[in-house]
């Protein structure tokens, strides 16, 4: 999964995934339901128009404040391929990686809805080839890339109980 290609879907700044992408405030609703209405209040029609393989391009502090792991499970259901944002809420960032969702900190200026994106996790590059935009981002460490490839922390540890991924030092 080192190269990810998908269309940009835009969400604004400071969006809480507890409020907009979990059942924390919708008791009794399951992840399947949340996946059909996620982010509706901040981006009307977002979930309905979302196509499997699209990339969420969010504003600053995406997933701010408390964040449940369920938000990432919901996004997997929606078919989110990756999320790029200038910054993430700390707990959300951690949950995303632990649940196999690529998250990349990146300047998002100039990217609009529908732009086809190319993300190279190993090289640390985000591009919009049609617009000649290419941005360098810090490459994800090998440990994190392997963790994402495995589909998350637990599947990773079942394969690598010693955390050793070989090559680059953990």
């Amino acid at each position, binding site marked *: 999964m080192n190269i990810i290609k998908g269309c940009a879907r835009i969400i604004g700044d400071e969006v809480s995934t507890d409020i907009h992408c979990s059942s924390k405030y919708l008791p009794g609703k399951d992840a399947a339901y949340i996946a059909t209405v996620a982010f509706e209040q901040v981006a009307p029609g977002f979930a309905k128009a979302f196509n499997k393989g699209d990339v969420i391009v969010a504003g600053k*502090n995406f997933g*701010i*404040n*408390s964040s*449940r*792991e369920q938000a990432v499970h919901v996004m997997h259901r929606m078919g989110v391929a990756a999320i790029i944002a200038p*910054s993430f*809420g*700390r*707990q959300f*960032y*951690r*949950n995303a*990686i*632990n*649940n196999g969702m690529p998250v990349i900190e990146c300047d998002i200026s100039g990217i609009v809805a529908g732009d086809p994106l190319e993300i190279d996790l190993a090289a640390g590059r985000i591009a919009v080839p049609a617009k000649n935009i290419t941005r360098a981002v*810090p490459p994800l*460490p090998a*440990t*994190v890339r392997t*963790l994402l490839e495995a589909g*998350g*922390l*637990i599947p990773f*540890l*079942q394969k690598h*109980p*010693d*955390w050793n991924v070989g090559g680059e030092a*953990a």
Partner: protein
Amino acid sequence: MGHTIAEKILGQHAGGRPANAGEIVVADVDFAMIHDARAGNALKMIEKLGAKSLPHVKRVALVLDHYSPPPNMEAANTHVAMRAFADKYGSPLYDVGDGICHQVLPEGGHLTCGDLVVGTDTHSTTYGAFNAFGTGVEGTDVSAVMMTGKLWFRVPETIRIELNGPLQPGVWAKDVTLTMLGKLGAEGANYRALEYCGSGVSAMAIDDRMTLSNHAAELGAKAALLEADEKTFAWLKAHGAAAPKPVKADADAVYAQRIVIDTATLAPQVARQHNIDDVVPVPDVAGKKIQVALIGTCTNGRLDDIRQAAAILKGKKLAKGVRMIITPASRAIYLSAMREGLFEILTAAGASVEAAGCGTCVNITGHYIAADDQVVISSANRNFKGRLGNPKSEIWIGSAATVAASALTGVVTDARTVAGGDWRAAA
């Protein structure tokens, strides 16, 4: 180039050399905690993996504090599952009424200076008061600790905050954390570690230092570290902790930001309704009517908080129309407060005392709901709209001294203006 406390502790747990901010390391975790608001799904997942893959399970405490006592069948069933898990695998368990995770972990001697500790709760920053790197994680992380004893961490940049001078009587660590929230904004320290230092910290008792580290969670901080001193060592020893491995920052450590707060002249502060960073000095809003006064939570439910309240309310009655609830942060605090006669004073004044637990922090147990238009003043950490079950009520946040002084008068009150408001434990 020197290193911060965060860089050193994470480095020591990831091979030995100090780590650098921005690096991702895989580190040995000394102790972990999972509480009843996260354990339901996590324990089911862990059980599926099987006992053979849980060699580190004994260094993970299970704490029944959020749903204490359980308000519904789901929570009650989660509690039964947690007890069964602890029996089967030998994990330490803190049951309903034992207290809040962030209080019972240090009291139980589970951590010491230089340790790396995680918990399924944002306020796991509390352990920084003991010079331990404490940070909040999720159920998956705690499962990984049970399986491997390790976790990955992004090494945070650090903000150094110098507290210049001991606080005045009637002013507490909570007034410092509220000042920081007013300055940086909620989440203003997202991803970052804080290091509190200076004569203002040295003068603080351990109870107050725990508030300093605890309430850093509202700043978005990943950890909030204090250097250890004789007070730290004495407290840890008294609670049966392992020998401390204190960690200091290097003089030439690199910081993302440096802040100095003139704590010697600081006034009591409050956060007004709905936003924890809408912070004003108490004298500016004194006179605002309140109807509910709450003392408790992992932020300010400790013995010194209850002692302050009792000093202010001794021989007095709550203002007409005010109801007050005291929720000690742990069973040990509850027992100490009983022995000191504090509950007699508070009960005679008109307050109610509840069993130890997360209690009044959030409307989980369902019995703290405020009425429409009521104003709650609380020693908790958060005041989101509707956190106490009614979006039409207001929650104001202050120190236990501010809460008790306001309960006495019925309006937001500067504790320095009432008898007993200058109480502080002898050093």
